C-alpha cells in the first residue's frame, strides 16, 4: 500500500516537472528529452519482451525501423497526409510485420529464437538498403513533419517545444498503458511464460498464441517509437533498422534493469545522456557503455532500477552470512 502511494506521488511529481520544464530550459535539453521519450518507449517495448516475457531478441530494431520507414514513406508518398494518419498507418504496417515474423518464430525459443530475430533484422536491413527508390537506401529519407489535421483546423507541428509536448503526452499515455498492461491478464500470462512455459501448457494455455500476441504487441510499440523517431528528426535512415540499433536497446534495458517496469526508462535516459555527454570527451564512449553493461549483467542483474534491492541485499548479507543467492532469474532447461 505504502509503496504504491509513494510510487504514484513520485510519478505525478515527475510528470509535473516534465510539463513545466520547457519554460525553464534551453531548447537543446528539450530536444534531448524528446529523444529520451522516444527511446524510452522503445526500451519499454523491448523489456516487455525480455524482462516480462523472457524472450531474448537480437533484432527488435526491425520493428522500430519498420515503423520509422513506414512513417517516412507514407509521408513522402501520400500528399497531405496528416501526422495522426501517418502514425496510424505505420502502426498497421508494423502489426502486420509482427504477425508474419512472429508466426515464423512461433515454435522456437532460446538460442534458435535469438538467432532468427537476428536474421530477420538483417534481412529487413538489407531490404531497406537495396530498395533505393522507396527507402532512399544509404541516403535515407527526409520528410517535413506533417501538421495534425483536426478537421476544421490543422495544427502546425514543426516547433521543438510543440513536438516535445506531443511526444510527452502520446508516449506518456502509451507507457502508462504498458504499465497498466503488466497488471492485466495478458500481462500476467506473459510472466507465466517466462517462469514456466511447460506448466502453462498443461494448465490449458496455448503458449504459441501467447507468444505471438506478445511479439506483435511489443513490435507495435517499438514501431510507434520508430514513427516518432522519424517525426522528431524529420529523417530516417538504415541506422534505424540496423543491428546496431538492436544492440543499443539491449544495452539500455540491461543497464536500466529488466526486472522493474521503470528500468528501461532509466536505461534509455542514462544511455542517451551518456552518449551525449561522453561523445564530447571520447570517441570510444561505446566502450564505456559495454563495460557498464557487462558489469550490470554480472553484478547487478536487476540493473540501475534494481540498485535499491542490490544495496539492501548486500546489507542483509553482511548481517546474516548465509548462502542465499538472490538471483532474480529462473534457470531454464
Amino acid at each position, binding site marked *: 500500500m505504502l509503496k504504491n502511494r509513494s510510487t504514484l506521488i513520485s510519478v505525478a511529481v515527475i510528470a509535473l516537472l516534465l510539463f513545466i520544464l520547457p519554460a525553464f530550459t534551453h531548447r537543446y535539453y528539450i530536444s534531448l528529452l524528446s529523444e529520451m521519450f522516444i527511446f524510452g518507449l522503445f526500451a519499454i517495448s523491448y523489456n516487455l519482451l525480455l524482462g516480462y516475457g523472457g524472450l531474448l531478441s537480437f533484432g527488435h530494431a526491425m520493428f522500430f525501423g519498420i515503423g520509422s520507414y513506414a512513417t517516412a514513406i507514407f509521408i513522402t508518398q501520400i500528399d497531405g497526409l496528416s501526422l495522426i494518419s501517418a502514425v496510424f498507418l505505420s502502426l498497421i504496417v508494423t502489426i502486420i510485420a509482427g504477425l508474419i515474423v512472429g508466426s515464423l518464430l512461433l515454435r522456437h525459443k532460446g538460442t534458435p529464437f535469438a538467432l532468427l530475430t537476428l536474421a530477420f533484422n538483417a534481412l529487413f536491413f538489407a531490404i531497406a538498403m537495396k530498395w533505393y527508390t522507396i527507402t532512399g537506401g544509404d541516403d535515407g529519407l527526409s520528410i517535413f513533419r506533417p501538421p495534425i489535421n483536426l478537421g476544421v483546423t490543422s495544427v502546425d507541428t514543426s516547433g521543438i517545444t510543440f513536438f516535445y509536448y506531443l511526444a510527452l503526452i502520446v508516449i506518456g499515455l502509451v507507457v502508462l498503458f504498458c504499465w497498466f*498492461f503488466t*497488471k*492485466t*491478464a*495478458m500481462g*500476467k*500470462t506473459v*510472466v*507465466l511464460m517466462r*517462469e*514456466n512455459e*511447460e*506448466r*502453462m*501448457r*498443461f*494448465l*490449458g*494455455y*496455448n*503458449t504459441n*498464441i*501467447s507468444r505471438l*500476441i506478445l511479439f506483435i504487441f511489443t513490435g507495435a510499440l517499438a514501431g510507434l517509437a520508430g514513427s516518432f523517431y522519424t517525426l522528431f528528426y524529420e529523417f530516417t535512415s538504415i541506422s534505424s533498422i540496423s543491428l546496431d540499433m538492436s544492440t543499443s536497446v539491449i544495452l539500455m534495458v540491461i543497464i536500466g534493469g529488466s526486472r522493474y517496469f521503470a528500468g528501461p526508462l532509466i536505461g534509455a535516459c542514462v544511455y542517451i545522456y551518456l552518449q551525449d555527454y561522453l561523445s564530447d570527451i571520447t570517441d570510444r564512449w561505446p566502450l564505456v557503455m559495454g563495460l557498464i553493461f557487462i558489469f550490470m549483467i554480472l553484478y547487478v542483474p536487476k540493473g540501475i532500477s534494481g540498485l535499491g534491492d542490490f544495496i539492501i541485499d548486500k546489507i542483509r548479507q553482511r548481517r546474516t552470512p548465509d548462502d542465499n543467492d538472490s538471483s532474480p532469474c*529462473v534457470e531454464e532447461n
Partner: protein
Amino acid sequence: MLDVNQIKKNFSGLEVLKEVTFKVAYRENHAIIGPNGAGKTTLFNIISGKFRPTSGRVTFKDKDITREPPHIRNRMNLSRSFQITNVFQELSVFDNVIAGVRCHHGMRYNFFKSPTSNKEICDKTRAIIEEVGLEKVTDTTARELSYGQQRALEIGVTLSTEPEMILLDEPTAGMTREETAEAIELIQKVTVDKSLLIIEHDMDVVFTLADTISVLHYGTILASDTPDKIRNDQRVKDAYLGEEE
C-alpha cells in the same frame, strides 16, 4: 472415461512401452504400479500430451486425443501433476493457483482486465488453496515453501483447472509418514467426484486409495484388477510384490 489402447513408445530404438492397454472408468481411482524404469512416467507423458506414442491410441471421454497438444487435453478437463514439483517458483501460492483458474475461465489474453478483479476467479482460487491446506501461506513465494507444502501446491495447481480426471505422478515421493497420511487424506478428498490415475511406489497409499490397480512391468500391463485380486496374483507377486516383501 480414459481408454488407453495398445500404446507403444520407442525412444531412438529403446522400446520403453511395448503394448499398454487399460481403461479408467468414470470416477474410478486407478493406480499404476511397477518397478522403476517400467515406463510409468512415459505413459503419463503420453496420456497428458507431452509425448506422442509411436503407435496406439488414447481416448478420453470418447474423443481420440492421441495427437492433441497438452493445452487442448487440459481444456477437456484432463489435468496432471508432476513427479518433480513443477510450479511457478518465483510466484506466490495465490498466483500459482490463479493461473489455472483464470485460464479455465477463459481469461487468458485480456489486455484490459486484471484476473483479481473477477470475484468468481478469486473465490475459486482461495477455495482451492484452502482445500490443499495452504491458506496460511497464500502470499508466500513457492520457492520458500517446505517440501510437503510444495507438493500440496503441486496438487493445488493441478486442480486449478477444474479437471474431471487427474493424473498424479508419485505425489508422495520423498514424504515422511505423517506427510504421506495427510496426502492420502487430501487426495481422497479432492478426487471424490473425479477420476484418478495415480503412479505410486508406496503400497500403503496404493491399497488405501485404489479401486483398480494396473501393474506395469517393463512395457506391458501384467495385470489390471481390484486390489485384492492383484495382491493374490501369482504373476504380480513373482514380478513385483514378491520382491517388495
